[in-house]
């Protein structure tokens, strides 16, 4: 039985719609740029949002949502209602989801990935990045042509790579502190 991971789809869809409204408005307001992935001036958005350029880039990529205060500031800057910037038109709903942007995964496999990933939350402080990494694993797995045993091995290797990475980073940071 295959089901859609609906909660993740909802969240991704919401953030993607927000980023589409944001980038479209910025381009209309003359802040387009061919140098960034979403075609807008990231530095300007970072300035208005009082955040790093990396975070501003994540807003435009649909990977993060700003706080209410920041949404208010962006909405004033782009001269739209904050509510519209955040939620869009009322008729915009899940019915408009493009099936190319959905994931289908066996619930047992999703459960396996989440259980295996759980210890990672204790060894990293950067939770959004970890969640992004886990989403990457899930997305990648859904496209692999392999038997169940191979897929589980890939999941294990991917998650082990994260555990090793965070331990290595912690060791490096500890060494720096000692020096």
């Amino acid at each position: 039985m295959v089901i859609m991971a609906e909660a993740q789809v909802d969240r991704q869809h919401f953030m993607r719609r927000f980023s589409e409204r944001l980038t479209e408005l910025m381009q209309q307001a003359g802040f387009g740029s061919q140098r960034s992935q979403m075609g807008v001036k990231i530095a300007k958005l970072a300035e208005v949002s009082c955040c790093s350029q990396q975070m501003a880039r994540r807003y435009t990529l649909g990977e993060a949502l700003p706080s209410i205060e920041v949404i208010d500031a962006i909405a004033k800057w782009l001269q739209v209602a904050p509510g519209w910037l955040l939620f869009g038109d009322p008729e915009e709903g899940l019915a408009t989801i493009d099936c190319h942007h959905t994931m289908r995964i066996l619930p047992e496999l999703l459960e396996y990935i989440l259980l295996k990933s759980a210890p990672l939350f204790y060894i990293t402080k950067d939770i959004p990045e970890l969640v992004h990494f886990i989403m990457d694993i899930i997305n990648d797995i859904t496209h692999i042509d392999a038997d169940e045993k191979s897929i589980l091995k890939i999941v294990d290797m991917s998650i082990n790579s994260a555990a090793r990475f965070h331990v290595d980073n912690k060791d490096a940071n500890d060494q720096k502190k000692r020096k």
Partner: protein
Amino acid sequence: MPMTRKKENNLLLHADILNILYEHRRFVAKIYRDIMGFYNISHIGLSIVNPAHELVVFSTTPNIEYNLISNQLWTQDCCFNPSIGQSNKFSWWGDNTSNLSDNQQNHLNKIKLLNNNFTLGMSIARNLQGFDLIYSFASKSKQPDLQAYYATNLPRLIEIGDFFYKSMRPLYLPYSPSFEPPDVRALLSLVHQKHYLRLVVDNESCHV
């Protein structure tokens, strides 16, 4: 993950190629975070062929490489085979340069582009000190004239590929113990060798 050692077109897959693809995934993701967003890039891959023709690959979207290998499509693909396309030039993913059947080409496009919602992909092969490096990129951008946009930014894409190679080189070292992979400074000199200033003084020029 059963893996048999394959030798095709003088290329030999590293015995652990699929494990290598996933074992360093978190590190690759970290490097990608520094690149993501520049020039609309949504994917980067790196294939390294040493002088013994042994191939290792790293990727931010490893399902592409995994499926190409498991479906025996890797030998005729520009992400793996440096003899497809010209050095330091783009090989566009949709182009059928290996005389593949329509079915094979469609399968290739599905694995590389459609599965991952990429609108365009391209690879660049570089040869240095007996090594072949192949940088592969893909984008999800729907901006018009995307191919022309990349064509004008080829040197920048090569620089991004060099950065990725430089970042991955320490991880690659154990997989090619008999051959020292190219130093990054050699790559930079290759990129910049055609760009120099000419100082003209009293109608006599000298290079600076």
